[in-house]
């Protein structure tokens, strides 16, 4: 009787010990393994967020932009690692989609996600998705998977969506120059301007009493001083008659499209730093702050931007853009400015925004680079030209996709 009871007690201890050991190891697993898994989740989510933002910044409405976005995501794998910042994420999946034109953050990325979009023009969203397996050491003792297999690793999924979201107001970052819409009815994202064409960002002196100055031949209204434009008029190659006539008939002769400060001591922060006299919104009337500016003092800063670029020589957008992709240009020559519609002498409405490539006269001979001083060579009465490259995205040293306003910033959507 007594021996029998002893036997049963021994078995009971074994069972309780086993049960409690499993429970204890499960508790340890909960703290150690799950703690590790949560850290990995946090780290991979950081990678997904940062990589999606980096990808979205590169989208510019072309297929090159799509492949640049994919490269940017891949490049982030060497920055944001997981497993206590030791292991790089391998082959994250990158999806693309579009939003309704002019979409705000709320209804962004409403399209179907695809890894290889057939059209690239409206793609403004990037989704980065990844899955990593975290090894676990205590959990296998106490847990089986759905298929009754022992769990040796936990799968951690992370994904993030970033998009270029339209901006209607810019409080900082715009250079104090402006473009003019190509025709009175032109709308965003390009306002009738052609990517790669040359337009005025500041206008030469004009006089509406000049010989032959009329709506059909507005070239004659400009004073014929030598600028870097067509026919020695300081007008840029691709300005339309509509744009020229809008300037001549609506602006006072002292207006040139410049809207920053005239004070030499702070010019630098306006020209280089995008310190704006005021926040500029679509629909803002800029006429009250248009001024003649101080071209001689401003010029050195535009030339500085050109010379700060690793490609300070190419003057065609195609050549420059391919060097941007190859990372042999760094985007320093690109400036963001408003695009205006001068409707009458009292109203110059902001239609939207655009990005322009500053021109250069730099040259390289036998490995020696002669820096550009193009803008410094012009006098106050001459026009300044730049090459229109597309809508802008804040912080992207490249053009953006562009919605209705021609300006966007990247945001995380999820």
């Amino acid at each position: 009787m007594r021996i029998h009871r002893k036997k049963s007690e021994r078995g009971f201890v074994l069972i309780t010990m086993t049960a409690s050991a499993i429970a204890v190891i499960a508790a340890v697993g909960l703290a150690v393994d799950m703690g590790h898994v949560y850290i990995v989740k946090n780290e991979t989510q950081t990678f997904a967020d940062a990589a999606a933002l980096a990808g979205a910044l590169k989208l510019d409405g072309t297929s090159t932009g799509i492949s640049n976005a994919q490269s940017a995501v891949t490049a982030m794998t060497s920055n944001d690692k997981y497993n206590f910042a030791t292991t790089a994420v391998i082959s994250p999946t990158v999806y693309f989609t579009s939003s309704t034109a002019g979409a705000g953050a709320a209804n962004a990325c409403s399209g179907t996600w695809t890894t290889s979009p057939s059209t690239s023009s409206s793609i403004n969203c990037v989704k980065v998705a990844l899955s990593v397996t975290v090894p676990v050491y205590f959990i296998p003792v106490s847990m089986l998977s759905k298929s009754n297999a022992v769990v040796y690793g936990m799968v951690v999924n992370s994904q993030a969506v970033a998009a270029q979201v339209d901006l209607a107001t810019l409080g900082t970052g715009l250079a104090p120059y402006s473009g003019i819409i190509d025709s009175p009815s032109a709308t965003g994202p390009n306002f009738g301007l052609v990517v790669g064409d040359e337009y005025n960002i500041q206008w030469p002196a004009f006089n509406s009493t000049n010989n032959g100055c009329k709506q059909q031949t507005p070239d004659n209204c400009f004073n014929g001083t030598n600028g870097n434009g067509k026919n020695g008029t300081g007008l840029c190659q691709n300005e339309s008659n509509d744009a020229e006539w809008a300037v001549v008939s609506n602006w006072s002769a002292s207006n040139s499209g410049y809207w920053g400060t005239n004070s030499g001591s702070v010019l630098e922060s306006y020209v280089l730093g995008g310190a704006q006299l005021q926040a500029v919104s679509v629909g803002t009337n800029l006429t009250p702050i248009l001024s003649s500016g101080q071209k001689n003092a401003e010029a050195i800063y535009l030339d500085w931007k050109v010379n700060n670029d690793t490609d300070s020589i190419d003057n065609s957008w195609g050549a420059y853009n391919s060097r941007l992709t190859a990372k042999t240009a760094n985007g320093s020559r690109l400036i963001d400015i408003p695009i205006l519609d001068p409707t009458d002498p009292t109203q110059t409405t902001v239609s939207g925004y655009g990005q322009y490539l500053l021109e250069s006269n730099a040259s390289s001979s036998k490995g020696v680079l002669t820096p550009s001083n193009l803008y410094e060579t012009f006098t106050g009465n001459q026009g300044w030209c730049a090459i229109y490259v597309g809508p802008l995205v804040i912080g992207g040293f490249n053009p953006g996709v562009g919605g209705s306003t021609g300006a966007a910033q990247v945001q995380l959507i999820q």
Partner: protein
Amino acid sequence: MKQNHLKQRHLNSRGRWGGRSGLAMMEFAIGSLVLTTVFAGTFQFGYMFYQYNLLEDAVVTAAHWAAQYTYVSTTSTPSSDLLTKVQNMTVYGDPTGTNTTPVVPNLTTANVNFTVTMSGSGTQVVPGTMTVAIGGGSATNFTINGIFPNWHGIIASFTANGKPTATYPFQGVFAPDPTCSASGC
């Protein structure tokens, strides 16, 4: 019968306390030592992982914030204004430093390592990525302490040498000031 047996507590023939109470005490002593160690260790690890996660959140927030802030330096050395704000953002979750409670006990701004990578070459550069890390580089390494003190070499702390870290692509306004040098403007 069983109850009687358990209650038995008497001197045996060799004059020692008999029965199972001594064994139970031994079991309890050994068992509780093991259990206490296991649970203390578990708590220790859990707490350190929790702190690591808090630090990860702090560097992510700070790096994302830095990436959107206007960058005025023309080199990879950020302006002292930006550096201070990023350090405050990491430690206090607030760029101005008005809030003075660190996200993790004993974390200071000296533990924050802020690195900017520029794109371009030589002196022709624009901001590329912003990285915030705890320790590493010129920053003081930070020791994540467990809740229990170090006892006979049993793990009670983990020194963060450049970890956790977070990198974000620059997405702000580049407002270069060529008159600024590394030492300031």
